[in-house]
């Protein structure tokens, strides 16, 4: 082996999962990528000091994988189905692009929206918006196009931390929620497996916190990685987390009492003092309509924002005159009416949720619940302060974090509410050390959640719910998942709002709509584009979804390899992959998971090596499509506005805008983007083009750590968090119900039950049991709970086809199969490594038993999302998947449209090869 003659180390990034971006360098020897390394040039700007996680080390294999699609392919077998070989044949880019453009032009000619009011073009992207970091200028083309249906999900939105996304943004502009890990001292983590999914930033910070001596109590049915790395593991019964959290609130309110809580925060930053009338609505000023509160100084009920008052947090008070406003502006007037403060309503509401009550439901001892509540309260250090960038802020180093299956699906609203209330009770909501939101996606602007805080009604932030009034509600859905019709809280922020709707409904209603459906029938999209997404693996009841996808008229898939979804495609287009293409993206400030930095800026992903085969840079593909579809001017206008870039390409000090008449080369686009971004970040002082970024990799400017905390912004604007009483949600739910019932539809009624002012315990696990029985099965045939969990090696990386990930993931317990409690396995005659069948009322999946003591005896866990049958390499490793056997069900869909990865199953040992 002779030494390479030309060796370079190319700075770039990895953003394959939502916990990025993280930095790396690619070692290239004589034009071949050989190694991945951290990029320590970034160690002072990046919370993980320039390091990248295990997944990125598989990118060399990803580049040279012999199973890659390296030329455009056209389907030659007109029949589609799991058993129909597509017989893909290679074609030229010219032919491929002409096919796509012709189809798009015909859609434009017919009208972009069809007879049912639905877009003819549907587009699906994968994992949490991360494909946007790899699709070059494609967002600009999509913006130029017009109406698009993004609602055929691949799991994101519904399998994601879905309720947390929506309610988190609602309560505290928290699309994702994290602990202030660098400062916190006590975390109650309910299934937040952050050591697996939080990326290098979270892993670094929590490791530092462990050494610093923080305490994390991890509550989860199995001993996940985070459970292992925590001070205490509480093996809770699946889907009983609301009861656990309610009991914690009970202990704080009933056994410790208001005097020990953060009274000032409750009084000034929440709606705790607002008076609630006998009809469960705020008592409002007769004239102004403002919610009333009790002024202790004057002994009167006054509008909450009256200057100079001292509001009572607790108590019941007689109000001489008040009005309440219900759904559809229905006004009720009262005189001499008793109002209880929202805080008092909360106290009374949780009186029955004692630790003893919760113990029976959760299978967690009452003493443990009581102790944890006490530890949380003590660690909250009410009264303590800290100085951040010259400002003195309240220091409350406690947080409650939630993970998937806790913050999505039925019971998630209760958990998200509880967690946020627990933060508010001790003043830790959006305070240093406490529970923080990290970004917004439903509100704008997306890159600065502080700027999304504007005064709204009743002293709260302005919210942008989809209207539910009788004149403003849209009875005809705009998308196939009915997001703006059914889920007011998703708002109107383009593709994000769509993706956050109930994406499984888009799939389900293609087959059958409910019996009392009175809206236009959902149509198939005429064209479906898929990128970095494999819904036929990553969504529930995957076999059913495969059949649904097979019926779509025309699918274009940007393809890495053949997979279970693009098996139904009409065209495969190979885009240049991670190490082969160019794009500039934002970094820093505050973003998903624990990506909150002390600086912000932009970072370049650049081609370390030339694309393999005929793969082409996505930006080149996009520009060609724009040209051939006749949308070039609109496309360039979108680029000039800053879509697919970072800043607008023309600002007050600069003009790097592109000529609308000339198709730009990819490098030209990114050069303009680089220059515009640098000028914006440096306030016009510095200008750096693509060549500079290719050498330096990134550009950063400092951000104040005050950006991490929303409470100072709320204080400055005199706003309150809309807690603990959800009066607005109650009214919206009633309005939505009125609208649906006016249309004679009742199929969403169960979901309407989630719109309550104070969440109740509503036997969450029983919903899954009922659904099973309603499907005609018997609960006793399925005695176990099946959950899923992630592994860092596979988390969202699309790494199923990467041999090295497969090899090293097997060092981690459970990655080889179905994780089962060792004693349960012994009772069933199952030994380590035995092939087992895991069966639900929907189907069966197969894998090898992995025995452990770190598992509840009544629970099984399958890692990740596998069960491939088309993806090369992956299809030859028999790995089970919950997705194969979890039902897509309206009954299991909650009000925000989310579901959870949980299903009742049976397990038995199988002979090798048997099914």
């Amino acid at each position: 082996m002779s030494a390479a003659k030309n060796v370079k180390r190319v700075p770039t990034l990895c953003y394959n999962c939502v916990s990025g971006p993280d930095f790396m360098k690619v070692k290239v020897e004589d034009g071949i990528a050989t190694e991945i390394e951290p990029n320590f040039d970034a160690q002072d700007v990046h919370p993980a000091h320039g390091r990248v996680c295990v997944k990125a080390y598989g990118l060399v294999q990803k580049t040279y994988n012999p199973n890659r699609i390296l030329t455009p392919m056209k389907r030659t077998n007109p029949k589609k189905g799991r058993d129909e070989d597509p017989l893909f044949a290679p074609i030229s880019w010219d032919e491929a692009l002409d096919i796509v453009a012709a189809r798009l032009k015909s859609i434009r000619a017919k009208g972009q929206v069809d007879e049912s009011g639905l877009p003819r073009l549907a587009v699906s992207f994968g994992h949490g918006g991360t494909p946007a970091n790899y699709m070059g200028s494609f967002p600009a083309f999509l913006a130029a196009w017009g109406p698009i249906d993004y609602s055929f999900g691949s799991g994101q939105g519904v399998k994601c931390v879905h309720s947390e996304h929506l309610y988190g943004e609602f309560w505290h502009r928290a699309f994702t929620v994290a602990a202030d890990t660098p400062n916190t001292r006590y975390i109650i983590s309910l299934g937040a497996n952050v050591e697996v999914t939080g990326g290098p930033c979270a892993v670094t910070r929590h490791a530092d916190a462990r050494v610093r001596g923080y305490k994390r109590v991890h509550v989860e049915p199995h001993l996940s990685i985070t459970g292992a790395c925590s001070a205490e593991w509480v093996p809770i019964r699946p889907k009983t987390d609301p009861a656990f959290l309610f009991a914690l609130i009970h202990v704080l309110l009933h056994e410790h009492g208001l005097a020990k809580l953060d009274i000032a925060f409750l009084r000034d930053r929440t709606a705790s003092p607002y008076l609630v009338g006998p009809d469960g609505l705020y008592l409002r000023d007769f004239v102004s309509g403002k919610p009333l509160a009790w002024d202790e100084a004057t002994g009167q009920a006054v509008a909450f924002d009256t200057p100079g008052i001292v509001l009572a947090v607790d108590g019941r008070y007689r109000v001489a005159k008040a009005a309440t406003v219900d759904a559809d502006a229905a006004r009720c007037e009262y005189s001499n009416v008793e109002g209880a403060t929202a805080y008092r309503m909360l106290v009374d509401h949780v009186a029955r949720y004692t630790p003893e009550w919760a113990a029976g439901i959760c299978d967690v001892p009452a003493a443990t619940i009581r102790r944890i509540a006490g530890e949380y309260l003590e660690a909250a250090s009410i009264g303590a302060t800290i100085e951040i960038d010259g400002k003195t802020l309240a220091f409350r180093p406690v947080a409650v974090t939630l993970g998937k299956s806790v913050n999505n699906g039925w019971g998630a609203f209760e958990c998200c509410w509880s967690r946020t209330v627990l933060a508010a009770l001790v003043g830790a909501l959006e305070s240093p050390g406490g529970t923080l939101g990290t970004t917004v996606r439903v509100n704008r602007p997306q890159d600065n959640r502080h700027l999304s805080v504007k005064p709204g009604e009743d002293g709260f932030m302005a919210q942008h719910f989809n209207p539910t009034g009788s004149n403003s509600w849209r009875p005809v859905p705009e998308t196939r998942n009915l997001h703006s019709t059914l889920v007011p809280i998703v708002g109107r922020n383009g593709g994000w709002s769509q993706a956050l709707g109930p994406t499984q409904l888009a799939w389900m209603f293609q087959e059958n709509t409910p019996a009392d459906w009175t809206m236009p029938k959902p149509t198939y999209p005429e064209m479906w584009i898929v990128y970095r997404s494999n819904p036929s693996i990553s969504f529930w009841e995957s076999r059913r979804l495969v059949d649904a996808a097979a019926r779509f008229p025309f699918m274009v898939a940007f393809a890495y390899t053949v997979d279970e979804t693009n098996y139904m495609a009409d065209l495969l287009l190979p885009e240049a992959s991670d190490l082969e293409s160019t794009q500039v993206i934002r970094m820093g400030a505050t973003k998903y998971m624990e990506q909150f930095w002390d600086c912000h800026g932009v970072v370049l992903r650049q081609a370390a090596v030339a694309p393999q085969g005929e793969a082409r840079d996505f930006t080149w593909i996009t520009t060609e499509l724009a040209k051939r579809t006749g949308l070039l001017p609109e496309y360039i206008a979108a680029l000039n506005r800053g879509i697919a870039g970072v800043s607008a390409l023309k600002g007050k000090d600069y003009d790097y805008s592109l000529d609308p008449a000339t198709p730009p080369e990819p490098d030209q686009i990114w050069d303009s983007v680089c220059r515009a971004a640098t000028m914006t970040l440096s306030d016009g002082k510095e200008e750096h083009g693509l060549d500079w970024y290719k050498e330096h990799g990134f550009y950063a400017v400092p951000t104040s750590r005050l950006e991490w905390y929303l409470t100072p912004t709320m204080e400055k604007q005199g706003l309150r968090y809309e807690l603990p009483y959800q009066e607005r949600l109650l009214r919206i739910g009633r309005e939505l119900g009125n609208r649906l019932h006016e249309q004679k539809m009742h199929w969403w009624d169960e979901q309407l039950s989630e719109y309550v002012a104070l969440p109740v315990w509503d036997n969450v696990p029983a919903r899954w049991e009922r659904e099973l029985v309603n499907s005609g099965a018997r609960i006793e045939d399925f005695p176990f709970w099946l959950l899923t969990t992630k592994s860092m090696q596979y988390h969202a990386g699309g790494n199923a086809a990467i041999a090295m990930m497969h090899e090293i993931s097997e060092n981690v317990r459970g990655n080889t199969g179905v994780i089962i409690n060792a004693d349960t396995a012994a009772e069933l005659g199952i030994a380590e490594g035995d092939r087992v069948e895991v069966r639900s009322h929907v189907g069966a999946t197969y894998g090898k038993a992995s025995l452990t003591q770190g598992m509840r005896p009544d629970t099984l866990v399958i890692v990740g999302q596998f069960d491939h049958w088309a993806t090369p390499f992956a299809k030859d490793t028999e790995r089970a998947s919950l997705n194969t056997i979890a039902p897509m069900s309206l009954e299991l869909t909650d009000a925000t449209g989310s579901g959870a990865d949980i299903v009742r199953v049976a397990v038995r040992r199988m002979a090798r090869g048997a099914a």
Partner: protein
Amino acid sequence: MNKSRNIGDRTLPRQQRNWDGRAAANFICGGAGGGLLLATALASGRGADLRPLLVVALALVGIGLLAVWLEIGRPWRALNVYLNAATSWMTREAMIAPLLFASGAVAILFNWPAAFWVAGLLGLVYVYCQACMLHANKGIPAWRHASCIGVVVTTDMVEGAGLLCVAALVWPGLVFFGILLAALLAVRWLAWRKYLASLRNAGVPTATSQVLNALDVRFVWLGHAAPAALGLVGGLAGLPLLAMLAGILAAAAGGWFKYTLVCRAAFTQGFALPRTPSRGQSKAGLGVQPGWNRVRPI
């Protein structure tokens, strides 16, 4: 490392697989051959021409070395084996081998009694080197006790005496070595018990003790009691058939023992944590040593 899909296999002691039947053949054949050289030396000078036994002995040693040569990764560099006489028992074994062949050849060609004895003593040194090779391998708990040297060397001697007894069918005068065989079996039984005791005292992978315990009863009865009785009676009564049976049993049992030692009881050390780490405010835990029958790791 263990590439098994069973996670426990990756953390537990594993049966080593790099030294397979070919390496075992070296210990089995080389040990028996070395033992036979010494036994032949003892039996020489009483009139019978025992040179064919030397041929058999050298052939056994040669088969063992050939088997090893077929097993190593770079056979054409085999002569590098001579580079570390300072510490390596494998080097020393390789150094003895040509001397052993030379003295054996001289004895075969010239029938000099002195050459028989030189070959015989070199045979003893050869088997000692082999036993020390095992003992030096600290990665295999079943091998690294000093008592392992004793049980391997005495086994080699037993095999040598056993093969001599088998030769009583050709040279009936050798039948009296059945008594020597019985005596050596008694010594080997003591060495075996001492070996098992030292494993128990020091601790050993559970899998190793399972394999050795499974072997124990049959080894004691078929590998000691039966051949000792047959050899004693045969030797005292002058019955070559009994002596031969004793020899076959003794040699076969010895070979089976060495195969078990190398290929079935040779579990690796595995991994041990004297303490498990604290995580934030949790206390560090007690130690863990997967796959060992110790209450606490050392």
